[in-house]
């Protein structure tokens, strides 16, 4: 059994690129098959979400936080949704494809990666909406757009690595430890509130609480997206280093865990 190295995930990804691409497009097609709007939902969903936030936080609870609050919220919530949905869905990715694992010589690692790619596609499809919203607010004079927005893809690559590693971990571990899904559902709900999506980290008064928020691995990612688009400045050095560290740590641990559990998967499902 070859030892997991940092290159291995990329090798696997390359070797099974056609399979992962085909399965991702199958997932996306199957998701919208039979619905009238079809693929348009991928655009409509974030648009409607933005509408709801704008409505709620301008009419019902006018926020005293950063302005324009809906755009701030939207910037943080998209990458969070990508993370949360991909990780949660990965818990069942291997289990629900038991037929493939047991009956076909199938690279099991492709399954969580397919979940990650299909959620990444959703994330990418929502970006034009985010950009249009930012332009609209900029024209209105609420914010000014900066070239820093061009750094988005780099953050997205790092976040995808981070999410992929976690996805591999939970996909394989949940086969043997099925409670993982329920534990994660609740943890992720908690995570939403201890990630600076609804608020800015500096507005938290208590110092230990701020330290806790800093420990949350999703914090640097969300903060960086906000920096690049909303505030229009470069990410801090600490956040950048943290993102890189989390991305690589997650990928390597994810692959090691998956490698170790691989041999039991076909039997344990």
């Amino acid at each position: 059994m070859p030892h997991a190295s940092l290159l291995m995930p990329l090798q696997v990804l390359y070797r099974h690129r056609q399979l992962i691409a085909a399965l991702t497009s199958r997932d996306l097609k199957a998701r919208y098959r039979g619905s009238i709007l079809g693929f348009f939902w991928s655009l409509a969903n974030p648009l409607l979400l933005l509408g709801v936030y704008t409505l709620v936080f301008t009419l019902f609870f006018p926020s005293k936080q950063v302005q324009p609050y809906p755009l701030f919220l939207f910037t943080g919530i998209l990458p969070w949704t990508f993370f949360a949905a991909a990780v949660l869905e990965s818990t069942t990715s291997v289990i629900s494809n038991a037929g493939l694992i047991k009956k076909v010589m199938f690279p099991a690692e492709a399954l969580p990666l397919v979940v990650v790619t299909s959620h990444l596609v959703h994330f990418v499809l929502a970006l034009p909406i985010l950009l249009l919203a930012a332009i609209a607010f900029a024209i209105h004079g609420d914010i000014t757009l900066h070239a820093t927005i061009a750094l988005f893809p780099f953050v997205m690559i790092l976040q995808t690595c981070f999410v992929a590693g976690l996805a591999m971990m939970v996909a394989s571990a949940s086969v043997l430890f099925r409670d993982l899904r329920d534990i994660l559902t609740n943890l992720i709900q908690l995570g939403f509130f201890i990630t600076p999506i609804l608020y800015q980290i500096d507005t938290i008064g208590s110092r230990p609480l701020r330290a806790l928020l800093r420990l949350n691995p999703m914090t640097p990612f969300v903060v960086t997206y906000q920096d690049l688009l909303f505030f229009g400045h470069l990410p801090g050095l600490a956040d950048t280093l943290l993102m890189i560290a989390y991305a690589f740590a997650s990928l390597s641990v994810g692959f090691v865990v998956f490698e170790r559990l691989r041999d039991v998967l076909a039997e344990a499902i």
Partner: protein
Amino acid sequence: MSFAISVDHVDKSYRLWGRRSQFATLKSALLKRDLKLAPDASVPALRDVTFAVDKGEAFGIIGRNGSGKSTLLKIITGILKPTSGRVTVVGRVAALIELGAGFHPEITGRENVYINGIMLGLSRREIEQRFDKIVDFSGIRDFIDQPVKTYSSGMYVRLGFAVAVHVDPDVLLIDEVLSVGDEEFSAKCVAKIQEMKYRGVTLVFVTHQLDQVRNLCDRALWLDHGAAVEIGDPTRVVDAYLQRVAGTQVSTVTTSDESAGERAGDPPDKEKDPMEEERWGSGEVILRRVAITDPEGRDLVALGAGSPVTIDLDVEVRVPQTDFVFGIGIYHADGTCVYGTNTDLEGLLPDALQSDGRVRFVMPSLDLIAGSYRVDAAVHTRNGRAFDYRRGCIRFVVGSRIHDIGVYRPQHDWKFDGGITFRAVDNLKRNVPAPIAEYIRSAEEKPKRRK
């Protein structure tokens, strides 16, 4: 010949899963990297199985439910890892363990063909090249753009099989899937598999359809409780299995008459000449002597094409029977079955096999082309359990000056009308009498008697 699959001392144990053991497995897999199982926490599925399958060979695996057949197939495929031992497979493997595994119900047949093909190791371009062949084979072109959830189970399986056989594997593993589909499609599957065999694809079947093992396989393996009981000639292995199922002990048949050549029931021997007689059965009824004779009752070893021939079976009844079938098979030296029949196939209903007697299979004219042939003779029950099965018990040679080809020479004549004429008939090229055939035979036969 080089091997395509080598299974070397393979053991497989399945863990017994309990509420806690899953979590324990997770912990030990992650922390200790140690997946050794305590004996009380595991069930053995395969014990020390060793065999090799040659390239281009068709290999059957039989055994009752739970004997480890599917586990073995999954280990060869690579889906499961052996607990100990080694498995080596050379070339591209395709496994038909479950047809259409991985089809997604919501998307169309067309899209599923692509995804299934990629899963089986084809590239997108390779699938494009084969797409029409796949769809034609499946016979569901009208529905290929419908979502798979609207398919009947038969259509589902047809499409799954069509994709799998068009992967062009070097090794094809088939688990009990030939029994699916209607008659027409089953026949198509068997024909396709024979075509693949002809092209040199190595085939491994797991099946309960023993006829398929007899007809399609070159060798067979009988697994019982995870251990290999017999490996070898498929008819012999299937028969040994049937004997066990029938509850009778397989015993060595001994004959009082040695004229047929060797003693029967010798253990299978790897170095054995393929033309040597193989013999097995329960011994309740014995074919004491099998001979090929002319109408006057004289033994023949060489004959001219089109001679009248009789195959005599001298039957010794040790235990009287009411369920019995006599069978004859004639094979060319290259193994091709020229003709096979038995009393059951021809509608003879057995009444009583009380005491010794003689069975005569009379052929007014044996219309074969020149070559060496062997005869199988058997007496068995109607479900195939052998009392005495003698494979290759006699050999004979047909001599002929005519170098026609094939195996069968229909009685025929050439007629010419109009402006088509031939000068004369070269009589030297007509059938040769027995003495000349005998000369040809002695020239062809190599010295190879074991004893």
